[in-house]
């Protein structure tokens, strides 16, 4: 069987998890845990294996791209659509790490979701998500990619609001969906423009991108970027991601760290010809990315919830990726996508393990010194911390450094400065989190029974159903009373294994694209996709080395500052030294610059008032008035006309005579 024949079976990659999803969603009630979990994990694992086969097959063919059409649609207007899958370096790379990370996270979920009453449905949704994501990255055109795009959006909604008994979760799911919808609107408009200009929605349209005017290309690029901004939670559509932490932690790890949020990066990379043709669009992308990286970094500094810190961190790291895309360093961006998937995945899974082990507590102020109780988790977490902070030789260093170096070499000094500043912030907030969780003083122990009564802290309200209260800790919430009566425990093997696996990868993944000519495996592999992009190289080796040193130094500064503040943990749970030092700025960061509140006032307020006006005036008075008025009119008219019917024969006879006179008159006039 030749490689091309094998590649025709590319459809199996998304089909396997899709089959799993259909089975679990239809027959979920009959499939008990943990079979459902293993079944789903197995299918995704198989999908990964098959992706590897596809990868190997792809290496054999030249040119390195193979399209397999699944379905030909011929709708109206001479618009032919060929839906199918495209195997090329970009899509296969994404498919590889998506399926790999997804398998590990499925494995983690088997233990994490233990005891949940909708266990099999969870795995059904997870599988469905993986299938949609794979359709997104493997599609051969904008239309089918959009299909996957919408699919992941739906699954994100379903999974974020999985515990929908919690009002906060339901609201968060809605918020995620609606916010990304704004971006999807941009995507759709871009598709319309592409079709109008180039008469096709396949990726073959990309080859003709240079024939467009700069204005059109800018429009298309910016609209696609709008979609990416929504999906990848960049400013100003970033608001949904922190709230999406209401979902179970595996969901946060898979969707909101490793995969769905990278869809934005994917589409910009895939549609890069449009961006390359428009310098404006590139600048916008770079600056939005850089700005978001800095912004999110500041917000993460003072968050008290372990997952919220990671959420803002994700937003910030995604900003880096867009920064890279904006300066034309596509391979660097994708490199970072992969390394980020590894270390962020580790961090999220680790957080999940910590939450699981401390009795569903997510408040950083109520943790501390957990490395003794969760050693494996701590190990993975610490490794990932060093990676994200950009410390060599961990993977994060290589990827972040490449991005910053590319920015500098492309003479985009502005974004470079912002990126470097954000690196310092990254070091700061991650170190804070690590030390508040695993080092310092223990703050989670419940006070002994005798002291509890004398304690000034108030007991939880009577009658509050704990299961509906969100465990997410918002900035400004007082720390909940310490409740843990027993020692925190390490998580079972199914949970720690993925953490350690991803952690290990976070260490070594740097080898994928070391910045030495012969070792840039990823860049070389992705070359066929980005042939038309001018290469960026540092001026000299020394220059590059100096830049690297600078970025490492910035990261170190951040780490050291955080160390000095948080080395011993928190003296009192409600006193955060960093927050106090920041004062007003700290509160601003904590409330995420009051962005949500501003939108509520600026957008929701007028819209609500407008709706109200529509209801009162247009609907009640004008429309109802017209409808009721019509009714009244006919009633009135009928009432009056009714009086013609007197019931008297003589009147009717008069009518006949009148008619006769009229007829005769007509004949007279007509002649």
């Amino acid at each position, binding site marked *: 069987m030749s490689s091309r024949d094998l590649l025709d079976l590319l459809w199996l990659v998304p089909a396997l998890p899709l089959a799993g999803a259909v089975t679990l969603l239809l027959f979920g009630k009959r499939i008990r845990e943990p079979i459902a979990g293993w079944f789903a994990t197995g299918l995704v694992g198989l999908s990964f294996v098959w992706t590897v086969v596809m990868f190997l097959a792809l290496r054999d063919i030249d040119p390195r791209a193979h399209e397999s059409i699944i379905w030909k649609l011929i709708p109206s207007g001479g618009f032919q659509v060929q839906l199918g899958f495209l195997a090329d370096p970009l899509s296969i790379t994404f498919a590889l790490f998506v399926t790999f990370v997804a398998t590990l996270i499925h494995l983690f979920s088997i233990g994490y979701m233990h005891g949940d009453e909708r266990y099999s449905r969870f795995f059904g949704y997870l599988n469905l998500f993986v299938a949609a994501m794979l359709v997104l990255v493997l599609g051969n055109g904008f239309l089918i990619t959009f299909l996957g795009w919408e699919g992941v959006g739906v699954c994100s909604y379903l999974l974020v609001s999985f515990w929908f008994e919690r009002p906060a979760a339901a609201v968060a799911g809605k918020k995620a969906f609606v916010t990304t919808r704004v971006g999807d609107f941009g995507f759709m408009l871009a598709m319309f423009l592409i079709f109008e200009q180039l008469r096709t929605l396949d990726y073959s349209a990309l080859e003709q991108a240079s024939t467009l005017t700069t204005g059109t290309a800018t429009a298309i690029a910016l609209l696609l970027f709008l979609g990416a901004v929504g999906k990848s939670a960049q400013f100003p559509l970033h608001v949904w991601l922190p709230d999406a932490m209401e979902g179970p932690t595996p969901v946060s790890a898979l969707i909101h760290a490793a995969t769905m949020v990278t869809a934005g990066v994917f589409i910009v990379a895939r549609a890069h010809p449009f961006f390359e043709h428009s310098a404006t669009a590139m600048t916008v992308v770079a600056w939005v990315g850089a700005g978001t990286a800095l912004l999110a970094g500041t917000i993460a500094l003072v968050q008290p919830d372990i997952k919220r810190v990671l959420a803002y961190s994700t937003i910030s790291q995604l900003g880096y990726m867009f920064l890279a895309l904006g300066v034309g360093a596509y391979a660097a961006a994708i490199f970072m996508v992969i390394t980020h998937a590894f270390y962020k995945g580790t961090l999220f899974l680790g957080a999940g393990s910590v939450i699981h082990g401390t009795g569903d507590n997510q408040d950083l102020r109520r943790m501390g010194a957990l490395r003794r109780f969760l050693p494996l988790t701590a190990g993975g977490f610490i490794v990932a911390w060093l990676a994200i902070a950009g410390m060599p030789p961990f993977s994060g260093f290589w990827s972040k450094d490449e991005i910053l170096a590319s920015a500098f070499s492309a003479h985009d000094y502005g974004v470079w400065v912002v990126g470097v500043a954000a690196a310092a912030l990254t070091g700061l907030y991650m170190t804070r989190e690590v030390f508040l969780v695993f080092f310092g003083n223990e703050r989670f122990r419940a006070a002994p029974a005798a002291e509890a009564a004398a304690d000034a802290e108030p007991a939880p309200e009577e009658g509050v159903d704990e299961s509906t209260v969100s465990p997410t800790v918002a900035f400004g919430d007082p720390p909940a009373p310490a409740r843990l009566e027993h020692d925190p425990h390490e998580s079972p093997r199914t949970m720690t294994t993925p953490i350690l696996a991803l952690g290990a990868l976070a260490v070594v993944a740097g080898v994928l694209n070391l910045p030495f000519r012969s070792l840039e495996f990823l860049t070389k592999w992705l070359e066929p996709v980005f042939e038309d992009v001018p290469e960026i190289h540092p001026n000299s080796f020394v220059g590059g080395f100096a830049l690297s040193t600078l970025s490492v130094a910035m990261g170190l500064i951040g780490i050291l500052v955080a160390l000095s503040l948080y080395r011993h943990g928190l003296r009192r749970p409600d006193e955060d030294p960093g927050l106090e030092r920041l004062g007003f700025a700290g509160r601003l960061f904590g409330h995420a610059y009051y962005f949500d509140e501003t939108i509520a006032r600026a957008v929701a307020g007028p819209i609500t008032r407008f709706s109200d006006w529509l209801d009162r005036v247009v609907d009640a008075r004008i429309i109802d008035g017209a409808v009721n008025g019509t009714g009244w009119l006919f009633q009135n008219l009928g009432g009056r006309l009714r*009086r013609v*019917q007197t*019931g008297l*024969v*003589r009147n009717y006879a*008069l009518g006949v005579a009148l008619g006769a006179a009229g007829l005769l008159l007509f004949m007279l006039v007509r002649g």
Partner: protein
Amino acid sequence: MTLAAVEVTANYYLVLGALLFTVGAVGLLVRRNVLVMFMCVELMLNAANLTFVTFAHELDDVGGQSIVFFTLVVAAAEVAVGLAIIVAIFRRRRGATADDLDLLKG
């Protein structure tokens, strides 16, 4: 008398017929007694018959007279049935006026 020499052409009869018809029509509209209204209807029918016969004579055509024959028959049938209806309605009422029958009033 020189008047005797005036020839009575068809026009005379036609005008007379029209006059009779009009009188009958006005009477129908004005009178309230149903029997008198009925009689006015008969007047109108007669006017029409007169016109028919006039034209039969004028055009030397016997068809006109046959039509009158049928008109007569129909008038007779109509009177029979109509009077039966009137009897049925007004059997126990005092005074047969058409204005009492206003059940169809809207």
